[in-house]
């Protein structure tokens, strides 16, 4: 992944993960797999995990521990009301940003 891509993703990955969790509770490894399937192929498992810790600390997700066949219990994350609010805000911000950037590009063309 290019340096610029990494930097840009940093600011949006939280919103992307919140969007993936909408109506779809998942544990860390599943989220990484979904991200990779959507074309974010180079995202590290640990980066996703660190992000999940953060959105848990911010109270955007509810966490349930489910036993797994192998290894320690898995933390399953589901979006709560506060997370949905945050996601709405993210899309609003994103629309604003992408509109402005498109305008800049058109002017350049």
């Amino acid at each position, binding site marked *: 992944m290019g340096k610029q891509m990494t930097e840009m993703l940093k600011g949006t990955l939280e919103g992307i993960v919140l969007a993936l969790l909408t109506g779809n509770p998942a544990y860390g490894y599943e989220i990484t797999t979904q991200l990779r399937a959507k074309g974010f192929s180079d995202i*590290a498992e640990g980066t996703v995990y660190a992000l999940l*810790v953060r959105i848990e600390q911010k109270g955007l997700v509810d966490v349930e521990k489910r036993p797994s066949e192998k*290894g320690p219990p898995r933390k399953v994350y589901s979006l709560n009301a506060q997370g949905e609010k945050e996601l709405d805000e993210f899309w609003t911000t994103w629309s604003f940003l992408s509109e402005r950037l498109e305008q800049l590009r058109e002017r350049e063309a």
Partner: protein
Amino acid sequence: MAAGWIEQLTGSLEQKKQYKRYKKRVEQLPADYRTAATALERYLTYFGAIAKGDVLLAMLEDLADLFEQSAADGTSIREIVGDDPVEFAETFIRNYADGQWINKERERLIKAIDAASEEGKR
């Protein structure tokens, strides 16, 4: 009361036990995961400069969770950490910024600038 001042000197006993439990978890990881987790612990504790014991322990326990789960899933070290281990470590550490020494200085800077800006208005 007695425990109070002794713990001021030695750190909390409960935290010491917690740290030992964390160490044991790391010892039980497969060798390659253990090596990676230990290297990350070193960097996180140096770079993080976390002054609060409870925050530090929360960070280490989260690190152990990640490595235990990844070992169970068979996620490779490279897939956990990514191409840039420093980038990963610094993303990880941001979650525990509350406990960092630098926080006091951040607050001091904010207050100083607030005061200066107020002074300018008068």
